[in-house]
């Protein structure tokens, strides 16, 4: 255990040891609500990306032009009347402040999303690590991330209560899955099911072809937000977009066999629905697509990767949310 001199076993005289804080989770009265995302995100060094450089410099140029233009305009106003100038300055200043606040908030949320990604990667490693006790600091990060919403925070309290100093890293992760993630997964699946049902109904009753696409888009984005919220992320527009982008990247790279199987199964279900009515079948397709998107969102937002036997099943989810839409006796299995 120790490289240096071997310590003789026995009672250690009091006052000769110094506690190392944070090495083992000590229950704290309540969790901090605000996360210092920057502390969680560890960013590797990257090479210059010219595309980004172009975008940033263009944005800066435009912003500079706007600022200079506004300055000139304000100067002009001040020359006409002091009051007019002051009012315009105040207006412009508030726009600027709001802009800074908005960008800052979005940026923080993006960082949070990124830290969630880092946490998931670390978590995957720790889930394999039986017999080690190195992951307690990581567990704290995980708990801080997940207590982003009230339900999650209550579950995290419960988890802290159940975790003992004798649980090794793998057991700590397993316990986290059992106590915190299972209920959250259920809540997330609930959001996905609702969205799938809504889009299915919306698409099957919409009179005009363009409208159903809008319904699906709007409802899906709302679903992604809901799912992200369940897992303690605070999604705003930009981070939802980032999330959706990542979902699509994952979807294109990782069309694994079981996803294919699931979709096939869902298609078979769709064929049954197709026998019922063309319009309804369209709705069911829309629902299935939304559900699939929802599961991708769940996989992206969940702070730990799924254990193999816990992986969500698209077909089951679809059956649960759309089953009631189909006439009895013709429900997909």
């Amino acid at each position: 255990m120790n490289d240096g001199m071997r310590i003789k076993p026995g009672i250690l005289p009091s006052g000769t040891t110094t506690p190392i804080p944070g090495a083992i989770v000590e229950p704290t009265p309540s969790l901090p609500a605000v996360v210092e995302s920057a502390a969680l995100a560890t960013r590797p060094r990257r090479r210059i990306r010219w595309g980004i450089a172009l975008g940033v410099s263009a944005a800066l140029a435009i912003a500079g032009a706007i600022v200079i233009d506004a300055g000139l305009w304000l100067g002009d106003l001040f020359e006409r009347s002091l009051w007019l100038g002051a009012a315009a300055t105040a207006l412009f200043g508030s726009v600027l402040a709001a802009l800074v606040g908005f960008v800052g908030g979005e940026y923080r949320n993006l960082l949070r999303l990124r830290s969630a990604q880092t946490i998931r990667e670390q978590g995957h490693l720790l889930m394999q690590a039986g017999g080690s006790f190195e992951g307690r600091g990581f567990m704290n990060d995980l708990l801080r991330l997940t207590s982003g919403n009230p339900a999650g925070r209550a579950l995290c309290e419960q988890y802290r209560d159940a975790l003992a100093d004798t649980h090794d890293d793998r057991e700590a992760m397993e316990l986290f899955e059992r106590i915190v993630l299972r209920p959250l997964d259920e809540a997330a699946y609930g959001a996905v099911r609702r969205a799938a049902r809504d889009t299915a109904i919306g698409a099957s009753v919409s009179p005009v072809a363009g409208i159903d696409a809008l319904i699906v888009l709007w409802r899906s984005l709302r679903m992604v937000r809901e799912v992200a919220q369940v897992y303690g992320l605070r999604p705003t527009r930009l981070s939802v977009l980032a999330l959706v982008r990542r979902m699509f990247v994952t979807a294109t790279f990782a069309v694994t066999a079981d996803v294919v199987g699931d979709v096939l199964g869902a298609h078979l279900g769709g064929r049954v629905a197709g026998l019922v009515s063309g319009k309804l079948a369209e709705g069911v397709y829309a629902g299935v697509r939304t559900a699939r998107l929802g599961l991708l969102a769940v996989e992206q937002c969940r702070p730990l990767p799924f254990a193999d036997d816990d992986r969500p099943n698209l077909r089951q989810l679809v059956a649960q949310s759309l089953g009631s839409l189909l006439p009895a006796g013709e429900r997909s299995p």
Partner: protein
Amino acid sequence: MSRTTDDTGQTFLSLANRAASSIEAAARALAERALRRKLRVAVTGLSRAGKTVFLTALLHNLHLAARLKEGQTGHLPFFDPVAKGTLEDVTLRPLADMAAFPFLPNLDRLLDPSPEFPPSTTGLSGFGAALRYRPQGIIGRQLVDTTTVEVEIIDYPGEWLLDLPMLEQSFEEWSAAMLRLSHADGRASIKGAWRDITPDAAATEEALEAARQSYTQYLRACREPPLSLSFVQPGRFLRLGDEVDLTALRFCPLSVTAGAAVKPGSIAAVMRERFERYKREIVRPFYETVFSGFDRQFVLVDVIGALNAGPRAFEDMRLALNTVLQSFRRDDEGFLARLFGLRMDKVLFAATKSDHVTANQFHNLRLLLRAMMTDDAGRLPMNTIESEFAALSAVKCTANRRVLYQGQQITVLEGVIKEHGAVEQLFPGEIPEHLPTAEDWASERFRFYDFQPPSLERDRGRGIPHIHLDKALQFLIGDLFW
């Protein structure tokens, strides 16, 4: 007219409805009864392995697990019915055919403001726990709302277990084995009148009783420190139990050769007869009560105690365990299987008192336990369908702390050492992951202390903190909750 037909029709309908609902109720009751399962779990272990504490903590934690409030997790998060919230109710009750395990008195001792460990078992006792739960499986869910798994657990003095191998031995064989052992290093130093008995002398009850007492004293001396040995046969001599007929116990090992003629009425002849009677009237009925009809078993081993007691005690415990557990083999080599039709599905070997070591040593503790239980060819003494090794502690008396000591980061235990009375920090050292070598014994790699049980007043309603009790439970009976 039409009205009356209508009425008749109505009556008919309501009758039919009533019949249907009562049939449904009956079907549910039938399904409930059919799905009710009962199993007997044996808790096996030599004396001082911690069986009584284990049982008390297990029953108490189970009992409370069904009474947790919303949002409480309790102490059994790895036991699935508790984790999934499907456990509805747990009722504890004594068994019909056996003395009740003193669960409440034991629990009171542990929950006392100045807690103590319960005293060791003096006789055979049992307790049942009926676990009512909501089935989650596809079929179970359709059939019944709730169903019950009844677990019967039996406690007995660990000494009695040692007599199990005697059932297969003749008096001559047993005597020879015991005499060989008694000349071994350590035991040879214990004097006793029984060593000087002349087998051919005429037997009197007084002489026989003197022999029994002298042999019992020898066994006691073997078991007590400084020797702290485990293999003391017959174990019943040290823990008589209630209403035992002492005349059946009046024997001790004699140097008699198998097949040689013995003089009728001589000590050798009478002792041989007593030996057979002892097996027939005391050992056999005990095994028939305890070990018939169970298919799962906890084997508790005090590895820590054996390490503390030194190489001789360690080897002796290994010998005792292996000799005893050989009898549980499932194939025809295991005579319990032959005699009582005993078949075991699952066995959990657990190193108890693992709160005496730091949590980072659990892995080694499990490996060491495994090494202790297997023979030189790597075979387990009992080949069950499933077996598992665990580091267990029924009552967790210590906390792990990471500290800086003499410039090194180490994990230490914090707890109240027995008879010291104040919280202290202890570095217990390392558990070897293989059977300790001579060098390991010589180089002071470990030193364990017994701890005072913690005060449980603060979380009275939550149960007793433990180490891996829930995982053990899940392994042994978790599969029954579908």
